[in-house]
């Protein structure tokens, strides 16, 4: 029963990106890339989402927002950081208001490099995220484990 893999619903949040990656995430939904082929829907509602896609680095004001959105999402869930800004802050890394990559606030499962990340790379990123999502689900339905445990274990299992 791996329905999760076939129906990943996405939530996109623009942390502090330049819009480049954002519009590429949206472009994924459009006819030329059409991620609905994989059952992906952009929900826009954290409570319905399975995959959180974050573009851009974390700054002072959106820190809480990002954490809040992450916590609202029901388990199992994965976080995909899109673009180099979401990974490390990229070219904005040295700005006074940038704290760094998304992993400074919430655990990140997949990093998609690029500036701006292309729709094809984003699709690849989601596909990578799906296998992690599946692992998390298996963990969840297994023995009652602490959420944190699952998070650590999944990182160990990611080295493939």
């Amino acid at each position, binding site marked *: 029963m791996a329905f999760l893999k076939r129906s990943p619903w996405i939530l996109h949040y623009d942390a502090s990106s330049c819009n480049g990656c954002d519009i590429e995430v949206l472009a994924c939904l459009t*006819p*030329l*890339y*059409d991620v609905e*082929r994989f059952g992906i829907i952009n929900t826009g509602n954290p409570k319905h989402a399975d995959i959180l896609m974050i573009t851009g680095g974390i700054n002072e004001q959106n820190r809480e927002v990002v954490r809040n959105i992450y916590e609202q999402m029901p388990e199992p869930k994965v976080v*995909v950081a899109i673009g*180099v800004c979401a*990974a*490390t802050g*990229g*070219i904005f*890394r040295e700005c006074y208001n940038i704290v760094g*990559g998304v992993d400074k606030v919430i655990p990140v*499962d*997949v*990093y*998609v*490099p*690029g*500036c701006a990340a*292309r*729709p*094809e*790379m984003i*699709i*690849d*990123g989601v*596909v*990578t995220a799906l296998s*992690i999502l599946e692992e998390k689900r298996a963990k969840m339905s297994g023995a009652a484990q602490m959420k944190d445990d699952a998070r650590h274990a999944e*990182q160990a299992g*990611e*080295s493939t």
Partner: protein
Amino acid sequence: MGIFQMTKTVLRNLFGGPATRQYPAVPARTSSLTRGHVAFEPSTCRSCGICSRRCPCEAIHLDKEAKVWEINRMRCIACGDCVEGCPFGSITMEQTYLPPVVEHVVERYTITYVKPEKPAKKPAEESTGA
């Protein structure tokens, strides 16, 4: 007809077949200029350090003593400034994109350029890790 203005487009779409590029089955569209990722040739690098000074993201790090050239893939914006700046053509821009990763990637190369003689061709050492 004001109300169903889009009818023509819709019918053409419906019967004309989808415009989708079936990405994983069909390779990504690139052009000869596409800035995919930066590639490094360790056998021609003379450790001048122009690339690391020019890089606007400080993604490139050069250790002249240890003869190590590093690129932090999680910082590189593929602007191509290092490619233009490199006087020896050791850095090139590849059209292919890097795959998504599950942890930060710093690629490390050992520079194999030997000074006066012809550059020796040794396989590039490559290691991945945070």
